[in-house]
């Protein structure tokens, strides 16, 4: 069992007041708060070892390089990648996906098919649409049912020898559905398709094992697992990354440059042009350490309790409907109240100190599927409490009274 008060003390922002009320932070799906150790890691880098990495022979540059590469190894261990050079630093999930879609531009041919799930965030739709425009490949959508679960029978039917890529999120940001990614990866491999898993919403809740999953690419953002914004990871199997051309040209990613011909560096540097977010990369390693110290078993236990309690309490509100009722889901509750626009509720409960996300959650196709303009999304983290859920429920009821 977690000592929640002790955990909460690790997060300085949680003691804040917002609009004169104690902050209830339920927008963890958008970004999680940062523990003091992560904040300290960023400051410590700038105070003690700030220097550019992989370049200088001087001591500071060596120290910074060591810290950065140590962080890469921590993340390699965390996701159980075979090699450290399969773990590439990015600015976030979106960057990771675009690096992959850009690489596929020289591989795909007209008529090739890309399967994307109906549950995706825009950042795992639009880059693939852009890729289709460039290559003549065709985007096909794996449909979902009204519980917000992907329909595997339909997925099986969509797969064919034309399928070159399958891209799906591990967990849906808008509904919290945990997708059967292991099954989907195995099925895709049977037809020779590569698989990208968008792990942005998964990494705060679980420890992905990329070798066990056998995915070809796994991308996530650092800021959703208590790390800094502007950090992320693109994991790719060595042979998959080697097949892709580099995404950006610049310093760091070269072996030799002449005006006639440039040869590229080996992995991971081939995909890491320019000076990276060094402080962020190092602090992401600290965040991963922190999450592992808290323990993913503990995190899941706490979040499961919050999900059950939150679902039960919210359903006491008259006219409240929850979207996303998959059997396998994480601590996300997306809901609406009969006859009231989600924006109105969100605006009023903000005044009561409660931070939730309202709107389409960058997943308009999902909102279109349910024929709604958006939802109110409360997404819980392990540092949240049942008392905070009580505050949410009371605030929603008060808003409902005002707006009805």
């Amino acid at each position, binding site marked *: 069992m977690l000592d929640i008060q002790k955990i909460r003390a690790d997060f300085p922002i949680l003691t804040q007041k917002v609009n004169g009320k104690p902050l209830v932070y339920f927008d963890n799906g958008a970004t999680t708060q940062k523990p003091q150790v992560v904040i300290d890691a960023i400051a410590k880098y700038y105070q003690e070892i700030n220097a550019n990495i992989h370049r200088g022979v001087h001591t500071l540059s060596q120290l910074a390089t060591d810290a950065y590469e140590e962080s890469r190894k921590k993340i390699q261990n965390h996701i159980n990648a075979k090699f450290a050079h399969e773990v590439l630093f990015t600015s976030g999930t979106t960057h990771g996906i675009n690096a992959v879609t850009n690489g596929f531009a020289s591989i795909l041919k007209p008529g090739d098919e890309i399967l994307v799930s109906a549950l995706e965030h825009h950042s795992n739709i639009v880059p693939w649409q852009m890729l289709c425009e460039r290559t003549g490949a065709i985007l096909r959508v794996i449909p979902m049912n009204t519980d917000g679960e992907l329909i595997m029978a339909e997925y099986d039917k969509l797969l064919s020898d034309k399928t070159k890529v399958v891209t799906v999120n591990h967990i849906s940001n808008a509904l919290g559905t945990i997708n059967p990614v292991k099954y989907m990866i195995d099925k895709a491999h049977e037809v020779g398709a590569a698989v990208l898993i968008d792990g942005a919403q998964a990494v705060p809740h679980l420890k992905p094992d990329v070798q066990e999953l056998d995915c070809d690419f796994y991308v996530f953002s650092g800021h959703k697992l208590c790390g800094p914004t502007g950090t992320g990871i693109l994991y790719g199997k060595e042979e998959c990354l080697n097949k892709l051309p580099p995404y950006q040209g610049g310093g760091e990613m070269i072996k030799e440059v002449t005006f006639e011909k440039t040869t590229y560096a080996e992995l991971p540097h081939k995909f890491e042009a320019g000076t990276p977010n060094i402080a962020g990369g190092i602090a992401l390693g600290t965040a991963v350490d922190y999450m592992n110290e808290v323990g993913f078993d503990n995190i899941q236990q706490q979040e499961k309790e919050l999900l059950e309690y939150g679902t039960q309490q919210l359903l006491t509100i008259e006219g409240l409907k929850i979207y996303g009722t998959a059997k396998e889901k994480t601590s996300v509750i997306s809901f609406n109240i009969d006859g*009231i*626009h989600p*924006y*109105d509720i969100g605006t*009023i409960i903000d*005044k009561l100190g409660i931070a939730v996300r309202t709107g389409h959650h960058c997943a308009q196709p999902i909102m279109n599927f349910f024929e709604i303009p958006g939802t109110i999304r409360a997404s819980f983290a392990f540092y949240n409490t049942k008392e905070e859920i009580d505050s949410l429920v009371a605030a929603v009821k008060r808003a409902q009274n005002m*707006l009805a």
Partner: protein
Amino acid sequence: MTIKEIQDEIVDEFSLFDDWMERYEYIIELGKKLPLIKEEYKTENNIIKGCQSKVWLQGEQQEDTIVFTADSDAILTKGIIAILIRAFSNQKAADILSADMDFIDEIGLKEHLSPTRANGLVSMIKNIKMYALAFEAKN
């Protein structure tokens, strides 16, 4: 009344409220009295982009002034656009174009003025001014 006089009147009304709750309740009241856009004008063209809720706005020339009607699927948004319409409807295009927006700040809605704010107050103001610009160019 001039735009400035109406704005001052609105500021006066809002100064009666002590807390945000009363302010929002008043905005909800105003939303209910919004001069509604005719159903036939609720077209894709009249939707204001950049709002989390849907907002339709229509401006029509009546003699030398512009009359605005609007609607939204969110009640707070309706209230906010009702405030704008009260200030800018039945006014001359040139006056609308030269009007300043300080009163938004004074009635405690400044937070809604951020360009990324989801209710799109900035887009609403821009659309009102675009109508004024278009009418002025035509005449």
